[in-house]
């Protein structure tokens, strides 16, 4: 799809991950043992043969920069186009009003104008899915719409989400917020295809008029002109918005059908590789129903848990229903249940931490307990 570019909005506005997000952009949030959240949408774009991708970031983008590097793992280290990391525009103080999405998009107007592609996909970074954009862009091209928004059918409405009402031709007739209007359950997933010149002119107009709400002033304004189409994505897609959804979506990976649809498809989720050693199981290891990344050393008991790269589980340690991120050490006879542990933590000998599946305990980066 040489005629389409991608823009990923890597901001923390729509997400509240508490202590986990304090140290990083949500886009760089570790997920599923070896991935970062941005890998899902970025791989989706790359797997759809998009070769021009901009990542617009707000603050806290160090770990994101470290993860993306030159874009090589996604084949985006290229002479022509490739990966562009677009940090916030310097005039942050002036433009602080309004939503971050609008600010970031306005800040990268010149990048979009300079690119030759005719269409642009604007995408949030907090979804877990394996999506190809070819079909939706094909539909967009054919329909001649200004915007095509991607939605998924859900069975109930929740606060904080936005839903689209559609007519029989898939034309969006209105946007509904939160848990009102029970009939309309087409949840917006935060992926939009724009005809680029329309997006550019809308952004410029909004800038002049001081309008700064992306959903209302860009999407909503175009809906009222009848120029927005809907595209239903019926594969697995979940948005990470808080600790609860992070934990639930992580636990979804134990469902083999979901896991396969995400990872065993023809289109791989690409990520930075670290050349870790295979995981070493020792004589006292008892591991069941778990997802284990490379580079771990396991001599304890692990059940229903996700271990990221380089985790050490010493003899007699017990880990259940937990998510343990990179390079953590769980010492002898320690016991963890329903814990989300950020990178580089150490649980000392015999310590115990027990949360509940609907209320997991979160341990911040580099803590020692």
């Amino acid at each position, binding site marked *: 799809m040489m005629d389409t570019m991608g823009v990923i909005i890597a901001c923390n506005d729509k997400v509240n991950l508490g202590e986990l997000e304090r140290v990083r952009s949500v886009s760089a949030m570790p997920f*599923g*043992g*070896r991935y970062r959240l941005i890998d899902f949408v970025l791989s989706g774009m790359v797997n759809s043969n998009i070769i021009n991708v901009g990542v617009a970031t707000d603050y806290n983008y160090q770990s994101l920069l470290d993860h993306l590097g030159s874009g*090589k793992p996604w084949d985006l280290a290229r002479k022509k186009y490739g990966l562009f990391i677009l940090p916030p525009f310097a005039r942050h103080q002036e433009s602080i009003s309004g939503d971050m999405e609008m600010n970031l998009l306005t800040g990268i107007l010149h990048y979009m104008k300079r690119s030759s592609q005719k269409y642009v996909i604007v995408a949030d970074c907090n979804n877990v899915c394996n999506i190809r954009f070819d079909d939706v862009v094909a539909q967009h091209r054919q329909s001649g719409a200004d915007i095509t928004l991607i939605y998924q059918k859900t069975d109930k409405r929740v606060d904080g989400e936005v839903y689209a009402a559609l007519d029989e031709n898939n034309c969006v007739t209105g946007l509904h917020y939160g848990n009102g209007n029970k009939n309309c359950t087409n949840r917006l997933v935060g992926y939009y295809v724009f005809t680029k010149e329309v997006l550019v002119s809308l952004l410029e107009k909004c800038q002049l008029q001081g309008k700064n709400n992306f959903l209302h002033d860009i999407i909503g304004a175009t809906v009222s002109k009848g120029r927005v189409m809907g595209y239903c994505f019926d594969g697995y897609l979940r948005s990470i918005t808080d600790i609860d959804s992070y934990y639930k979506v992580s636990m979804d990976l134990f469902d*083999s059908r979901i*896991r396969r649809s*995400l*990872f*065993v498809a023809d289109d*791989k*989720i*690409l*990520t930075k*590789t670290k*050349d870790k*050693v*295979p*995981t*070493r*199981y*020792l*004589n*006292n*290891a*008892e*591991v*069941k*129903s*778990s*997802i*284990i*990344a*490379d580079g771990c*050393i396991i001599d304890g008991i692990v059940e229903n848990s*996700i*271990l990221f790269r380089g985790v050490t589980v010493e003899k007699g340690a017990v880990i259940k229903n937990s998510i343990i991120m990179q390079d953590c050490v769980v010492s002898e006879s320690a016991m963890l249940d329903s814990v989300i542990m950020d990178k580089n933590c150490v649980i000392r000998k015999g310590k115990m931490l027990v949360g509940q599946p609907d209320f997991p305990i979160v341990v911040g980066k580099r803590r020692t307990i």
Partner: protein
Amino acid sequence: MNKKECIAMILAGGQGSRLGVLTRDLAKPAVQYGGKYRIIDFPLTNCAHSGIDTVGILTQYKPLELNTYIGSGQPWDLDRNDGGVYVLPPYMRETAGEWYKGTANAIYQNIEFIDKFNPEYVLILSGDHIYKMNYADMLSYHIEKNADVTIAMIPVAMEEASRFGILQTDDNGRIVTFEEKPAKPKSNTASMGIYIFTWDKLRKELIEDENDAASSNDFGKNIIPKMLRQGSALFGYKFEGYWKDVGTVESLWQSNMDILESDCLDLYNEDWTILSKSPLESPHVLGKNSNVKDSFITEGCYIDGTVKHSVIFDGVSIEKGAEVVDSIVMSGAVIGEDSRIYKTIVGPGAKIGRKCRLGLDEEDKYKSKYCSGGVSLVGADVTIADGSAVGRNSMITENIKGGKR
């Protein structure tokens, strides 16, 4: 090109016929090792960590898979503007062209390549050894001794000594005797097949050797003994640490088992990460019936059976009730329900059906001269039907079809 102090040449042209069906479709250096590596990752990693940024890889036998694996050299940080990794097959010249006749001839045919970098020293390596070694230290030793050739050496078991080049040194480290594969070895100090030559000396020797019709153009048989006879400065460089020639099915199996021992090869040292091209699969999954002990398991695997003292490569499935012991299961292989696999190397992509027995019984049907020490071998992409039995020391090269039991 800028002048280079030292460049490396890796001899990767050998077939490795003693590995049987494992090298049917690929060269020995491309054979998988240690869960996620290939043999050639070890010399390439050593080069990368020793600051050697120009590497020629001499290929000849079935090079497709090796060439594809090396690619631009990026996994080893060898995609460089000035230098980098080069795959060097034999090629046609104005009058004729010929295959690499021997190890020395392979380097001879690439004199022009080496001259382009105008190096002071040339490091000659084999593509079929498992070890971690800092070549920079060996080069310092070579320079300090003002040597013409430095040969890395290691003690081996006396009964195996006749498989190697055997040498003796004086107190100063200078080599006084060298015999290639002697029937009656004088010592158990073996050449590791790792040489540093001062390039102008080697260049001269290679040309002389090529003009000698009686020579078999081999470093161990011709170049080294001749240089020793004519009084050149040959020094031995003592290497301490793990080193294994993985030339046979049994030694390949043993060397994989060695990484399960803590005192053999430390793969965890962050300063000497073994670099390789990652298969990029999702983390591995252990099912609710799994029982994994004393093993290596890597990305993309699904394990619902029992795995003990084994090395499992990427993308392997081991189904419920299956039992894998003392074995090596290579990329993408499938072990069916209730099968029992003992002391077997299962090649990449092999499909073992249900209720099979491999490597358990004394049975002669598939016995092979390549397999010894009780180790059995299943070739790449071979399918073995449900309920089949394969004895010890067996090699399976074709599908085993089901039928009467």
